[in-house]
């Protein structure tokens, strides 16, 4: 289209593109040697993206594949993830602008070195594995075996490196070691300074974009959608076009063998924000979804706790100033402020509020519940008083059922897909045969299991547990009143509970042991464990993370008292 030379044969200017990416004259069908310089627009929708000049590049190889770079692969992954998020209701701005720009910036910051190096050199590096003699003459080039052992992923992929020794005797095609052009280079270089892209990091990108836009999706929501299959992550190469062949080292880069871990994705996001030199993120104000007041409301609903509890969570938030804009907004690189995990924070606030009202020492909450029950008998007008015991029974029942379902889903999780991968052409037939056998066995035993394996994923939803006030069985506690456990003092309603126990008297330093506190299941009251278990389930994170946050909040809340009394007495009066 932007090629204006005259055709050598017929002197017309009427060009089209062959499948191979070469220009041909529409008048006389003369094919030229000029190929289009591209980033192939299949890979990214925004054509204003800075193109990565590839120079001469073969569009077709023997097996119908094309040359592609690792970063193009990731670009495609991000695009697919953004599309999925859009389908989930995220605004299109995220895909079209924010994520694109972040990615562009990342390419600039990290690819400076790549752009200077001509494509030819990368090709040359790969040919090392073809003949062993080169290895001897250039000792600083690591062998393929070494490359495979460098990565930090599980041992599975390592044990199949037997192919490495045999490929040295095989053909010279560059697709032997990896489908991508720079796969080996990618793994080889020490990318610490340049923040090498990984699959978990794609989620960091997504979350960062979501946070920038202040979308109503927390990191735990995002990761849950990933695990439930609504966002491409596992087997994302399914979405790669046919001509982008993956093999060899590409597997190490793009294949995922574990669920994404909250901490890892979160920390990487922080690193990324610094790396990209991003400014202060848009403000998180009290009308944002991510503000603790809002998130608490959501979690309270999901936990089937009375709406009135919200007053108390807001009070806690206000008291320790965690609702402030400056506290909540992310400023990359600001080492002095502690980084906020909005979901964990909100959950921890609710836990603290529960402790304030019910003490949760395995005695008092039950006493209070009995007390409320008594008062309920005489309470004819207005809504019922909240009884902890009733709530506990309902929630425990549901939680056990859901946990059991979740455990079974973990056991039934399928990691492989219909598009099998193989390390080298040699392994291809074996892999395909195995795949066929697996499918046969699945069919055979699937018939015997009585029901066909449901192929549909559960509908994505923001709420995992829902309670309706229309239920006549009284299992919804939203409208219940806390009056049952409150008392009037000087015209104000305060909690009857005068006590509080701290989860820990002293906070650890994160640098020493990685945690602020230690959650060893034995020492704490069962009710406390239960409440942590509930939120641990909702957020799909370890209870210890919530516990850490609870400790921090408590220390802020009782800061003055702690400074004054340096005793080991864990029970302090409010």
């Amino acid at each position, binding site marked *: 289209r932007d090629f204006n030379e005259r055709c050598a044969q017929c002197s017309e200017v009427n060009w089209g593109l062959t499948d191979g990416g070469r220009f041909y004259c529409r008048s006389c069908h003369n094919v030229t040697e000029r190929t289009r310089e591209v980033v192939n627009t299949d890979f990214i929708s925004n054509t204003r993206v800075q193109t990565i000049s590839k120079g001469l590049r073969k569009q077709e190889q023997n097996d119908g594949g094309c040359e592609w770079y690792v970063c193009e692969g990731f670009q495609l992954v991000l695009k697919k993830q953004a599309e999925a998020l859009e389908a989930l209701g995220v605004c299109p701005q995220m895909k079209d602008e924010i994520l694109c720009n972040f990615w562009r910036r990342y390419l600039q910051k990290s690819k400076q070195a790549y752009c200077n190096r001509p494509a030819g050199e990368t090709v040359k590096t790969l040919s090392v594995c073809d003949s062993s003699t080169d290895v001897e003459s250039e000792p600083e080039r690591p062998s393929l075996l070494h490359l495979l052992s460098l990565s930090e992923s*599980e041992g*599975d992929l390592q*044990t*199949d490196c037997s192919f490495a020794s045999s490929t040295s005797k095989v053909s010279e095609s560059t697709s032997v070691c990896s489908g991508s052009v720079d796969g080996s280079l990618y793994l080889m270089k020490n990318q610490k300074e340049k923040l090498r892209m990984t699959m978990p990091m794609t989620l960091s990108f997504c979350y960062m974009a979501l946070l920038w836009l202040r979308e109503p999706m927390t990191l735990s929501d995002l990761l849950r959608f990933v695990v439930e299959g609504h966002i491409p992550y596992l087997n994302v190469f399914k979405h790669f076009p046919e001509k982008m062949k993956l093999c060899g080292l590409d597997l190490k880069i793009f294949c995922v*063998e*574990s*669920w994404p*871990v*909250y901490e890892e994705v979160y920390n990487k996001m922080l690193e990324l924000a610094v790396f990209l030199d991003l400014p202060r993120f848009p403000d998180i104000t009290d009308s944002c979804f991510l503000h603790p007041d809002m998130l608490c409301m959501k979690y309270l609903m999901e936990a089937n706790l009375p709406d009135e509890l919200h007053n108390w969570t807001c009070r806690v938030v206000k008291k320790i100033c965690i609702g402030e804009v400056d506290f909540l907004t992310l400023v990359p690189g600001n080492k002095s402020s502690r980084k906020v995990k909005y979901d964990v924070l909100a959950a921890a606030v609710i836990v603290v509020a529960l402790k304030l009202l019910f003490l949760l020492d395995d005695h008092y909450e039950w006493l209070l519940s009995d007390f409320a029950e008594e008062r309920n008998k005489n309470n004819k007008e207005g809504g019922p008083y909240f009884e902890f015991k009733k709530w506990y029974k309902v929630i425990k029942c549901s939680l056990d059922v859901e*946990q*059991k379902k979740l*455990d*079974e889903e*973990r*056991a*039934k*999780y*399928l*990691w*492989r897909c219909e598009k*099998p991968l193989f390390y080298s052409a040699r392994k291809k037939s074996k*892999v395909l*045969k*195995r*795949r066929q*056998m*697996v499918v*046969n*066995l*699945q069919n*055979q*035993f*699937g*018939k*015997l*299991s*009585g*029901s066909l*394996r449901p192929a549909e994923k559960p509908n994505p939803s923001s709420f995992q547990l829902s309670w309706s006030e229309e239920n006549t069985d009284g299992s919804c506690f939203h409208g219940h009143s806390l009056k049952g456990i409150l008392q009037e003092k000087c015209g104000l309603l305060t909690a009857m509970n005068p006590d509080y126990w701290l989860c820990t008297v002293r906070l650890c330093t994160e640098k020493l042991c990685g945690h602020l506190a230690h959650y060893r299941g034995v020492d704490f009251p069962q009710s406390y464990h239960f409440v942590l*278990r509930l939120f*641990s*389930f909702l957020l*799909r*994170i*370890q*209870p210890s993370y919530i516990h850490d946050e609870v400790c921090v909040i408590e220390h802020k809340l009782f800061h003055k008292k702690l400074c004054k009394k340096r005793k080991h007495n864990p029970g302090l009066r409010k």
Partner: protein
Amino acid sequence: SSHEHKLNFKKSKEVCLSYIQDAMLQKQWKRAAEFLTFYVESLEKDFSTEYMGPSEMIWRIGTEILCHHSHSSMKEFNSFIEQMKTLGVKRYLKVCLEHAFHLLCNGLIDEAYQNLSLAESWRFGEQTVIQDKEMKLIQAYRGLLDYYSWSKQKNILLEHGHDGFEDLSVEQEMHSCFRKAAVNLKEIIKIPGVWDLFVKCYVDLLEFYGDHNEARQVLNEYAYNSKFPANPNAHVYLYQFLKRHGESKKSLISALKILHDIVPSHELMIDFNTMLQKSKKRKKRRLGLEVIFAALDYAGWKENVKAWNCLARQMKQIVISGKHLDWIKQEWNSRKDWWPAFHFSRYLAKRNWQENESLSYEKAVVAGILLGKDCKYFKYISHQGCKAQVKRFRMLKKFVNKHNPVYLRISG
């Protein structure tokens, strides 16, 4: 259950496997099948660094499920097993062998034979040598099936008599089966092990074709070669063979001697005692007494009339002759503390009398001699017997009364 929110491929499959195991233990075959469908993809990552790789697991679990599931058929089973055979070369012969067993258990003898023959012809470089043991087993079982064919054809011939040339083909086939069977059976019983069925069949073949020497040698080897594990059946087979061929009492007795040592409660102890009692040699008779006492130490013999009869007979004889009372004393010494409660309680007296008069008679003889006329058992039985006016009980009463001093000498 775990509250872990991390998960990787390996852990996920481990968890899946534990669900399968739970379901199988509770015989929930549908559920086990369901989880197995999710487990099988672990084959696509079978590096088998651990001893139990997923392919072995899937083979064994799948077999169990298909055996027990109500909806599974032989056809399904066969198709499953054929896939399993391709999974692991190191396991190929084992899978073939178990497949054959399964077919045999379901009465599909021809299919089993075909499978075994096919497996026999398998060659795979080094593996053929490594899996030598399995190969021998396969050949042995094929030999067994050859024996089975031979046996069928033999019966056909014997039934129909000699009708003429129709039988010629059957006869020829029979002989060829014999040859095939003999070769394989002979091979397997060379290896130290427990080959009862194979030995029996082989001996049967040899006897039919008149090769008694070879048969005797085989049985001797099987019974007396110290490399072979101690096997009571080996001695039983040898004894039966010797008896069939009218061997001397001496050799019969020596064959049973070891059996007595290994399994004092064996049913052949009655034959043994009978032979020994009649012997002229004192040592043998002494041994006979020991044998029958030892047999009756076992609960399974408590109501065995024949055994009691043997003991009673021998004891009566000793008492009447007056010689060798010390034999009885020796045997009774280690038993006098517990035999009375074990055999001669009042409850048993009542029961024995009710259920089996002969049993109570024989036991009463023994009780009378060992415990005297005043023992509970004897008193009750003889009283009942005399009341019922059965002659032998009256005679028994007289006998025991007469020989009561003997009891005193024994118990003293």
